[in-house]
């Protein structure tokens, strides 16, 4: 018995109790989705996940996303299987389910954990030697179709360096990458310098949705050898107003954007040093088909229509057959061998 009247409790127990209370209080203040995700992890680890099925596909999708952010991939996969797959035709849910079912193993030599506040995240290949730099252009929702933590599993299998890019001003990358400073041209220069500093054998670009527009334009200006567009715009007509508002909100002048930058076809036709391009889109998605058609006939451009596919997002159509891997490998192979 200790002399302070606290019985047989070890001297650190009081502090521990306070610590636990703080954890409980902090947990109570978390958003419901995060609290539920933590409960799912606990249930998964104790083999009682079946007792916590999602009560709706919408909520299930949010919780799966939380689990992915927490890197609880096993729990996310099991939770997705437990009840939300096929529960509703909710765009995005199928993509998460398909990605989790076909997810490549993590690469311990190319670790990555996404910080959604960052617009440039570089994952350098650990081995010496020349290899391509892949610039990954996120869409307006700041993801690469799926959360970057998942997408990285596919990209890390390639023998490349990877840089994940976000346009936090949501102006289709026409103002460049904010953290690289300056304007569009300064960002292109900085990305070329990055490739040089890595001793990269070349640059390739891949974009999803609005990121495709950035991949095309910046890809042209950094002399990329290949650009892979996973649906997305090739010209900005209706979205032009959004770009101009975004520039104004950011304290930039919309008048500073050269007119030709709103239409990648014009730029590609005029360029004497253009990358090879693949634009993959759903054959039954009229908007994406029209955007792809805008590049039709340009030398070096290949339009790949997925038969019968109507959604804007194409990754879930590509993953099960291995076509997602094939397109990525095609992209990397556009870099000339040393």
């Amino acid at each position, binding site marked *: 018995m200790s002399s302070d009247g606290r019985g047989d409790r070890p001297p650190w127990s009081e502090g521990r109790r306070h610590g636990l209370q703080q954890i409980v209080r902090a947990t109570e203040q978390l*958003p*419901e*989705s995060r609290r539920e995700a933590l409960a799912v992890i606990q249930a998964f680890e104790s083999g009682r996940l079946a007792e916590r099925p999602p*009560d*709706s*596909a*919408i*909520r299930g*999708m*949010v919780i799966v*996303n939380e689990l992915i952010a927490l890197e609880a991939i096993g729990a996310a996969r099991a939770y997705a299987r437990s009840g939300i797959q096929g*529960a*509703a035709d*909710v*765009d*995005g*849910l199928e993509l*998460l389910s398909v990605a989790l079912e076909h997810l490549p193993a993590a690469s311990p030599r190319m670790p990555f954990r996404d910080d*959604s*506040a960052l617009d440039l995240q570089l994952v350098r290949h650990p081995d010496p030697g020349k290899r391509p730099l892949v610039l990954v252009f996120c*869409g*307006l*929702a*700041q*993801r690469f179709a799926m959360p970057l933590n998942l997408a990285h599993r596919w990209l890390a299998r390639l023998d490349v360096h990877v840089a994940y890019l976000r346009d*936090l001003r*949501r102006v289709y990358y026409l103002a460049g990458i904010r953290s690289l400073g300056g304007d569009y041209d300064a960002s292109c220069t900085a990305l070329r310098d990055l490739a040089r500093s890595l001793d990269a054998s070349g640059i390739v670009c891949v974009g999803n949705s*609005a990121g495709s527009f950035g991949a095309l334009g910046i890809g042209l200006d950094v002399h990329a050898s290949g650009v892979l567009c996973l649906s997305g715009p090739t010209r900005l007509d209706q*979205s032009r107003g*959004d770009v101009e*508002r975004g520039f104004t*909100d950011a304290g930039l002048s919309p008048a500073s954007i050269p007119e030709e930058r709103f239409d990648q076809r014009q730029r590609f036709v005029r360029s004497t040093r253009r990358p090879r391009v693949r634009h993959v889109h759903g054959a039954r998605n009229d908007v994406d088909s029209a955007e792809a058609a805008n590049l039709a006939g340009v030398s070096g451009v290949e339009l790949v229509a997925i038969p019968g596919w109507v959604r*804007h997002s194409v990754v879930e159509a590509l993953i099960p057959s291995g076509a997602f891997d094939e397109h990525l490998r095609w992209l990397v192979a556009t870099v000339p061998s040393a």
Partner: protein
Amino acid sequence: MHGETQLTVDQVRDAVASVVHGFDVAALDAERPFFEIGIDSLDQAQVLMAIEERFGLRVADGDFELCDSLANVVRYFASRTTTAPGKATPAPAA
């Protein structure tokens, strides 16, 4: 239950601001589809879940696509308001 809560566009804007960062939510056009302004289906689900949590409302899975803009979220709940299981009385409209 019908008509217990009249959600406002500003309340939906607040929900958007709570889950999607970097937007000037006050400037968002209430009628534009979410996907056009950079809110994908995952963001949309987070927005709807935030509304469910705050206001004790509930979106049926099959109605996800009906809630594809700020204005349509308001219309959806105005036309078909249900109370989530175990939720308290819905908050009054702002």
